[in-house]
């Protein structure tokens, strides 16, 4: 026994094969290639099958991680996906975009003495294997309850709610404002990090479970929540995302060449402007591109700029490297590809040429003082440190606010002072009867998996309501 344990510890964490940095920085294909079956089984053998698995506590949707990994170890990949599906409808997505280092892998016992088991890579492997082979039986579905549920928004939380409630026998319709389903998974996260076909394939899985999808439905405009109730829906889940771009309110922000990250990424990802003119939506391809902000959206924007042909792609962040909110892996990928980081720098003004096109930016150097409300050290400007940078494209990725389109059209939906929906933390229940909410429209901009976790909790609470009452 002791000997076997020793042997396991000797297997190093299997690296994820990936496109070479210089090559991938110029194409939109996915960065990592994924594990082979052999590598996956080898990596799975590193899991020590803890009796009290801490990794599961670290997973917002509570996947039986040792369970699915054990099946991978045995080469039972199809049984493994069924195990994951018990708790997670979107494993191909989560395996790619979850911040595993602070969730499951962050709690992995193996990780205490070395590299943790590559849970994310294994989840991705199992999901990709199934998408290619299609051998697993569809997840079981309970008998029809005759109850109807409307889900507003087809992002990660909406898809989770839809899947959970459909499995419990409710009739679910998802309403999506855009012409394609997936929400932020499609308009926000770039192809090289999450191929869109994978999202569409996961959505197709929901449709085969009987979930209806209505595209081009802007709830709040095309229909209101009350009208959905009048149509006979018994319960509604609101997962519309944050969806309001934040600008910096500095001079020159309306010049041609200044984008919100939402616009820049939506053009490239949803509208496929990177394939212009094959696709009709254009995008400005800057030579010297600056992205403001330090989160995952900023990394996505800066890396997109490289792929669109930028000579220099620079991240300008007002705090230091330690405070970067982006995932370590994303920062690492960006740096490998040649994205430059200018820390402790804050833009103060955009300037343009006679045609109103951005040509430079003025910045101030910052220094860090005492910690602020967020616990991070507050940056303040160093007087007289103004300097200019020549740039022709600026992407503002400093966060998002609450889009008021739906909430303003729903009078009895209580909001907090920032305009987000006031929902019970444990259940997602709102102030309006039979309406639940979750994801970024409740928490403000967060991660895919946290939105899915909120969806899971809300789906449980909605099921209880649909079977027992409010």
């Amino acid at each position, binding site marked *: 026994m002791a000997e076997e344990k020793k042997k396991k510890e000797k297997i190093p964490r299997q690296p994820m094969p990936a496109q070479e940095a210089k090559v991938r920085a110029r194409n939109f294909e996915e960065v990592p290639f994924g594990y082979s079956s052999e590598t996956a089984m080898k990596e799975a053998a590193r899991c020590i099958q803890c009796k009290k698995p801490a990794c599961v506590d670290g997973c917002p949707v509570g996947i039986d991680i040792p369970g699915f990994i054990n099946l991978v170890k045995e080469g039972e990949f199809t049984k493994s996906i069924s195990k994951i599906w018990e708790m997670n409808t979107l494993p191909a997505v989560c395996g790619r975009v979850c911040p595993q280092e602070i969730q499951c892998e962050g709690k992995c016992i193996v990780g205490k003495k070395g590299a943790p088991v590559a849970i994310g890579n294994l989840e991705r492997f199992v999901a990709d294997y199934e998408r290619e082979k299609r051998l697993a039986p569809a997840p079981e579905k309970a008998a029809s309850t005759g109850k109807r549920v409307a889900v507003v928004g087809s992002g990660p939380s909406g898809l989770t709610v839809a899947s959970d409630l459909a499995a419990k026998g409710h009739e679910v319709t998802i309403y999506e*404002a*855009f012409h394609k389903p997936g929400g932020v998974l499609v308009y926000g996260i770039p192809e090289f990090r999450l191929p869109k076909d994978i999202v569409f394939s996961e959505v197709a899985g929901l449709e085969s479970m009987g979930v209806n999808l209505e595209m081009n439905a*802007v709830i709040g405009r*095309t229909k209101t929540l009350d009208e959905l109730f009048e149509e006979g829906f018994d319960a509604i889940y609101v997962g519309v995302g944050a969806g309001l771009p934040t600008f910096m309110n500095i001079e020159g922000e309306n*010049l041609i060449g200044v984008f*919100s990250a*939402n616009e820049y990424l939506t053009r490239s990802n949803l509208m496929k402007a990177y394939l212009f003119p094959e696709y009709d939506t254009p995008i400005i391809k800057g030579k010297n591109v600056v992205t403001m902000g330090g989160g995952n959206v900023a990394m996505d924007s800066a890396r997109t700029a490289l792929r669109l042909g930028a000579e220099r792609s620079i991240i300008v962040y007002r705090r230091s490297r330690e405070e970067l909110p982006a995932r370590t892996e994303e920062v690492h990928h960006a740096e490998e590809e040649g994205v430059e980081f200018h820390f402790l720098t804050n833009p103060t003004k955009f300037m343009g040429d006679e*045609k109103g096109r951005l040509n430079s930016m003025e910045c101030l150097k910052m220094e860090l003082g005492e910690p602020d409300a967020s616990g991070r050290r507050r940056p303040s400007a160093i007087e007289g440190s103004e300097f200019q940078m020549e740039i022709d494209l600026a992407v503002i990725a400093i966060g998002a606010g609450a889009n008021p*389109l739906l909430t303003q059209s729903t009078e009895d939906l209580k909001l907090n002072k920032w305009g987000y929906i006031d929902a019970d933390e444990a259940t997602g229940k709102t102030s309006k009867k039979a309406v639940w909410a979750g994801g970024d429209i409740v928490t403000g901009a967060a991660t895919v998996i946290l939105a899915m976790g909120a969806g899971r909790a809300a789906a449980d609470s909605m099921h209880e309501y649909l079977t027992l009452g409010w």
Partner: protein
Amino acid sequence: MFKIVRREEMAEGTVVLNEIDAPLIAKKAKPGQFVILKANETGERIPLTMADTDPEKGTVTIIYQIVGKSTAIFKTLQVGDGYQDVIGPLGKPTHLEKLGTVVCVGGGTGVAVLHPITRGLKEVGNEVIGIIGARNKELLILEDHMKDASHELNVCTDDGSYGHHGFVTDILKKTLEEKDVKLVVGIGPVPMMCFVAKMTKEYNVKTMVSLNPIMIDGTGMCGGCRVSVGGETKFACVDGPEFDGHEVDFDVLMNRLQSYTNEEQECYDEYCTMQTAK
């Protein structure tokens, strides 16, 4: 798919009308609101303010001028064909109120957007004076519709081929001098709206303009349609499309509309070459 049930060409084929089957939108839409249309899988999302709606029939009508590849593709769609996506109604409806004498000024395809607003203003009891213009007689659209929608209609052409020889602002000036005008609505090319707003400001008459900036989602998410109004940044898709003409920074609007001039030309030229080759 959103089927086209009626199609008309106007202004020598440079302007096209499509009546589209879209019952959900038709039920909800009010004058001044817009839809976003996407013709096919690779298409752009194009915002167009509705020219008419028929809730009973379940249709919305749009009228567009061929200005680039996307509208050229729209033009190829015949009755029975359709748009892959139509989204709406978007934007705030026009505030219709009885004020007294109102003047509705339209230029080019702006007349299509102006028409339902003119009709609405008449229906709530205003004395409506219409002024519409085009470069020449052939390019003038919806004259009869505007005649019905207003109490008095003035027509102008730049070349004098029909009606008053000159600009809509000539007639507007005369009207502002002679009548106690409570509101002016100006919808058309940006320079026209800019001139209308400048003139009415001299007479201190409240003026509404309807803007059509570059847009993607139409729900306030991308900020691409931002305009400067009274020194503040507004989103035309959710705060508009109608704004106080005296507060709009037309230079910023005009400039931002030029964002993709080169790309649009390249794309349109390539499309035209391909069509000719076919």
